[in-house]
């Protein structure tokens, strides 16, 4: 009897537990190869909203984030001492994403509430996890602001509000440009669906960024056989120097 009741309860609650709207998403590519002619690439994130019931009232919004591998960082600040500008204070951050892009259907502060932002770490300011922050500085917040400013300048951080487009109410696409100065590793792509500032459903995908071909070979050689690599560099230098000298002597004759 109890079992039957439980089963009944499960049946009843199942549709309620599942989100009324869900995302089905895909990527144009799930790996990026850094080769000699690599000059940045664009990844296309596309998807559709799946519904079991008619669409609820109110606008539906989509947020796409692309986050590069986290690295440790040191941020230094210059101050004037005895007439010259020198590094004085430093702040050390354990893990900050090397790349972070947000693409949305509208202004981020309107389509995502503060509490949800805090929970999902969507906005760039929240994405920099300053938890492992060790500092001898009086004002660590100023350093985190500076990091944001520098990253945005370098194109490593990007906020593309209103660039995600809806096609026929349920289909959407977002283009995110990955710059040339990429750090190797796994790039986490999140696709979130929001209504009234609340995240209804989210999906995650991964794009692997890796050096390939000559780039991979040279990188491996430099790190695995540094002495051989160094000697190779010297041999190249010596040979090129001699070659140019010999060529010019021939030309002069």
């Amino acid at each position, binding site marked *: 009897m109890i079992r039957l009741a439980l089963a009944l309860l499960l049946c009843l609650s199942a549709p309620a537990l599942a989100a009324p709207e869900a995302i089905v998403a895909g990527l144009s590519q799930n790996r990026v190869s850094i080769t000699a002619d690599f000059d940045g690439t664009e990844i296309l994130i596309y998807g559709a909203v799946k519904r079991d019931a008619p669409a609820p009232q109110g606008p539906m919004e989509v947020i796409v984030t692309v986050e590069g591998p986290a690295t440790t960082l040191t941020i230094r600040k210059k101050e004037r001492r005895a007439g010259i500008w020198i*590094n004085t204070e430093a702040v050390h951050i354990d893990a900050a994403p090397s790349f972070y892009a947000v693409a949305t259907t509208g202004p981020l502060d309107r389509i995502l509430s503060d509490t949800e932002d805090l929970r999902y770490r969507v906005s760039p300011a929240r994405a920099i996890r300053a938890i492992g922050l060790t500092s001898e500085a009086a004002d660590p917040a100023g350093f985190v602001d500076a990091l944001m400013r520098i990253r945005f300048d370098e194109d490593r951080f990007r906020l593309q509000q209103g660039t995600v487009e809806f096609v026929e109410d349920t289909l959407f696409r977002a283009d995110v440009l990955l710059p040339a100065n990429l750090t190797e590793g796994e790039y986490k792509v999140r696709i979130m669906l929001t209504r009234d500032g609340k995240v209804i459903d989210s999906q995650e995908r991964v794009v692997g960024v890796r050096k390939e071909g000559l780039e991979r070979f*040279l990188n491996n050689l430099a790190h695995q056989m540094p002495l051989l690599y160094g000697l190779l560099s*010297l041999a190249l*230098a010596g040979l090129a120097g001699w070659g140019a000298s010999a060529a010019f002597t021939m030309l002069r004759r």
Partner: protein
Amino acid sequence: MQLYLPIAEVSVNAFLILGLGGIVGFLSGMFGVGGGFLITPLLFFIGVPPAVAVATGANQVVASSVSGVLAQFRRKAVDVRMGAILTVGGFIGSAIGVWVFRLMTSLGQIDLFVQLSYVLFLGLIGAMMLQESLRAWFRSKSGAPVRRSHVHTWVHGLPLKIKFRASGLYISVLPPLAVGAIVGFLAAIMGVGGGFIMVPAMIYLLGMPTKVVVGTSLFQIIFVTAFTTLAHAVTSQTVDILLAFLLIIGGVIGAQIGARVGVRLKAEQLRILLALLVLTVSFKIALDLLLRPTELYSVMPGMLP
């Protein structure tokens, strides 16, 4: 044409790098300086990480020096014996320099230390050379009798004298050893070959004729920078062979042209030009220290030491 550099991890314009190498190679061939004090700041400027710029710059200097020294060899303008002694001194000084460099890094402020030594040494040597070479130039113009190439001082009273045939000198090995050591020390700290210190030191301290100085300096720079390149490749893996390759192609061609132009110029003119170049770089670095930077903060990968 954009090219992605495997170690520096940036995408650069290949022709820009070729041109950069060419200009520095030209100056290198003309003056007998390695060009490290030019190439390294230029690479910073186009966005190559400092550690990679220093190590790869050293590699490029090896190539342009080899190219330049071969041209000088044909003119019999290399004092091999002097070069060898300077190199021995250079290794000793460089080993001490690397140790001091590590000490300064652990104390913090290595950047400031490097910048200040650039300003100080480039400024001092540039001013001294400019003053001396201008005076020599005016003297040669007015037709006054030229002073003897070197005067006898206490330096010539030191023991262990050796004949340096190519330089026309008969002096003790101790002063060249000391000059080599001082240059090697400064080179390790400033991350350059040290030609801009070596050239005036050979002219003014050792009394070598200017014609031999360029070739001998290049000869010595090959060994010091080869040592530096290898040390960087092994300890920090910061030599970017692709970047070096582009710089080298531009550099070796530039060095050949530079060596030919250098022959046409008078020794005093050559020294005035080098002095002006050295002073310009010194002035630029001094400005960086004195003016308020546009961005007060800087982001570096890695942990605090």
